[in-house]
């Protein structure tokens, strides 16, 4: 399963050798077997997780140095290269895959996280530069089982379709509400202009964020 708790081995998965278990794949894939019991995860296009470690491997094998990042209130150690971005460190080093990589060049907002409360394109920040700062990712928003009010509002307003832009939008919206409280429609458009949704859910997103702002103010 994806975890955001401390894991015993923080060596980037790309450096580990072997360990692939066919069983671990089938365990996930067979959920949809004919007539088999459908687990909670067996919705179409939905998540099936395997218990194998990820192996995305953007972090290269050479010149790794271990740094400490404070992510979602927990200090995590991760080995990175000097050039490793915060996005790659989060996704590949710490298995926090809710933060998405879409352009890797600061043009879409899908990788937005909060760094000391500021919305930040994590693909444009080096992991080394994030040392000593408070990083919040999409995984850090919900407390226990309850969604964050902005996440809840996204669900209620159906402010998503394919969902790939959604974590980035949620993070930008949380930052916007932190900054403006109850943003005007124009402010909201402006604050979210760095995030791209090709499914075209902008109107629903505005409604969701404004609803969440209203609830927070109540």
């Amino acid at each position, binding site marked *: 399963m*994806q975890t955001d708790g401390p894991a015993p081995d923080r060596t980037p998965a*790309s450096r*580990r050798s*072997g*360990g*692939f*278990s*066919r069983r671990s*794949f089938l365990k996930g*894939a067979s*959920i*949809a*077997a*004919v*007539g088999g*019991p*459908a687990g909670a995860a067996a*919705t*179409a*296009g*939905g*998540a099936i*997780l395997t218990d194998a*470690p*990820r*192996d*995305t*491997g953007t*972090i*290269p094998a050479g010149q790794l140095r271990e740094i400490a990042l404070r992510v979602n209130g927990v200090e995590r150690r991760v080995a990175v290269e000097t050039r490793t971005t915060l996005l790659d460190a989060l*996704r590949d080093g710490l*298995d926090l895959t*809710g*933060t*998405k990589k*879409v352009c890797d060049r600061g043009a*879409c907002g899908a990788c937005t996280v909060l760094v000391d409360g500021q919305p930040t394109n994590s693909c444009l920040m080096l992991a080394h530069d994030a040392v000593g700062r408070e990083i919040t990712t999409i*995984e850090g928003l*919900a407390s226990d089982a309850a*969604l964050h009010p902005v*996440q809840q509002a996204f669900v209620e307003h*159906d402010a*998503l*379709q394919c*969902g790939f832009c*959604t*974590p980035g939008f*949620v993070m930008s919206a949380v930052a916007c509400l932190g900054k403006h409280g109850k943003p005007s429609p124009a402010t909201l*458009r*402006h604050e979210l*202009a760095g*995030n791209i*949704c*090709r*499914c*075209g*859910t*902008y*109107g629903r997103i*505005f409604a969701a964020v404004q609803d969440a702002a209203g609830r927070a103010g109540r």
Partner: protein
Amino acid sequence: MSACVGSDLGRPDGPAKVSGRAVYVADLAVAGAWHGGAVRSTIAHGRVLRIERKPGFDWRRVVVVGPGDVPGDNVQELLSDDQPILAERVVRHVGEPLLLVAAPDLPTLEAALAALRPIVEPLPAELDFESATRVLHEVSIDKGDPGARFDSPPPGARLFEGTWRTDSQEQLYVEPQGCVAWPADADGTVVVRGSMQCPHYVRKALARCFGIAPERARVVQLTTGGGFGGKEEYPSVVACHAALLARAAGRPVRIVYDRHEDLLVTPKRHPSRVHHRTLVAADGTLLAMDVDVLLDGGAYTTLSPVVLSRACLHASGPYRCEHVAIRGRVVATNHVPSGAFRGFGAPQTCFAIERQMDRIARALDLHPFALRRHNALRLGDATATGQVLHDSVGSLAVLDAVAARTGIDRHRWCAPAMAVPSSNSGRVRGLGMSFFFHGAGFTGSGEELLKGRVAIRLLPDGRAEVAAGSTEIGQGTTTVFTAIAADALGCDPGDVVVAVPDTAAVPDSGPTVASRTCMVVGSVLASACRELAARIGGAAGDFRSRARAWLAAGGDGIVEHVYGSPPGLVWDQATYRGDAYPCYGWAADVAEVEVDLDTLEVDVVRLTTAVDVGKAIQPRLVEGQITGGALQAIGWAQCEVVSSRDGRVQQDRLATCIVPTTKDAPRFDVTIVEQPYAHGPFGAKGVGELPMDGGAPAVLAAIEDALGVPADRVPATPERLLALLEQRERTS
């Protein structure tokens, strides 16, 4: 009972998606997976002499796969066999794959790819589709005798000619292409999981590539971050590449494109040139139409014949006309192959006919709204293929709805060639409209040949599982299937689960394309559910306990149904006569724009649309499809530029590949019209593509209204508008 259909259930995938828990292909944990990539052609056309390996790289660290390593046919399975999986002697477009490489990590992969240099001798490249001569496919549609009409027009009739062009468009699904492939297991099965619309297409492509039976390829869809047609045919390419590498490496291989690669090499919308000759009576009645459709297919056939077919079948628009000739050609060039994109040829021809109608209206001094309404197809009319429309025709209803919402029927348009109105704000406003229809489902006998299958099966706990190859790509398939199944079974939505599309576990319901999933697959699902419900009976007790009792008594809990065309549909593919589609969705748009007179930037401030969907199974999802599709159309109309230089796509990063942002989204005013279709589930028709068709002509008409220059090409960028204004100044 009809509690779920027509209500809004809320998508089951919502909570996982808002919290980052949904697992897309780049998020999937696969221990020991290597990373795959391709060595690609850097030129548009050339002879491959050799591929040089730079000395100094330790090739033992990677695996390299060439054309000779394809165990089956080196053919990308689709409509035609002209596209190799890996080019061998000739490359025909920039980005064409030559060799594949897999490495333990991305930096090693990049180093290996950089150490492989294809030596290609350039050949002359065909980069202008309007002068290209190699025809990939042709379509002819004939009705009445237009030749005789044009030759001896009745008194008072006038002839109008117009040439209309549209450029390409990038789908820009936000999640890039990607999949993971595993080497064949003990029983020889190749497994692929990834981001896709059509798992059974991918399975077929793998079977051809490996020379194995389709059952020996297993394809499982992962959460998919958007498709819009871009993940119809192309995932088969990625899957074949990853599977070949997995075979060579003896371990799983993941390929996830970065945005740059995705923009450079994947198929996009077909560029078009459409020429209209229209004979019109003084009262505006369309007497005869002659339409010539030309599409740029790019380097290989891919889906172009079907795209051309749909383009031509929509080329005469939603209008009655007794004498019609439509000639379509799609030609080969050395551009990246064109492919599926929402609308599938119809947006191009819809743009042309709608602008032609505006041109006619102005010349005849008729109101563009009145001209459209006068000629609109109605119940009992026949289309260009002679299809008589027997039911579910919302044409007048959608026109009247947008008129009521906007007053467009009373709007006074600015005549072309009028001076630009002066404006204190430096901005001028304009209004434009469009009227359009879209055939739902596969063309002609497509559904009959495809025979989409859907199963509903009881699980041991008494829940019912929907099993189909149709995919959730954000449009709401899971929710729609849940609503249809719950109402047809007479159970709660919580009693329904939708199985993951896995070719080893679900029947082939056909591809998730052509606005067919709700209407066609949904109707098969509804009939299967009704049979199951009849079997287990309506005795007392909740659904799950009745279902468990049925199973405990040894009852068969699985019903699988096959699509059967509604009775009476006739289609002749050879002559293009008959019922081209089971039914049509109908829509009208009114766009309101503001144009900045200094920068000529176009701001679409409001889009009013009325759409006949038959029945909105999930109204909120339908509205999401309408506004999402319309926004893509608005983007295409004015800001989404795709151009190429020497065959290389210029918009190769998100900084230059512009799509609408929060600041570009207009206010939407959506009216859903419901003219039920007797053979759709609960009356529903397709809706996915329709909203893509009408935005561009409405926006360009509005720009024309604002600036007084004839806008004849999509996209109407500021540069193009400036050229039109300068041209007018020179000629006036």
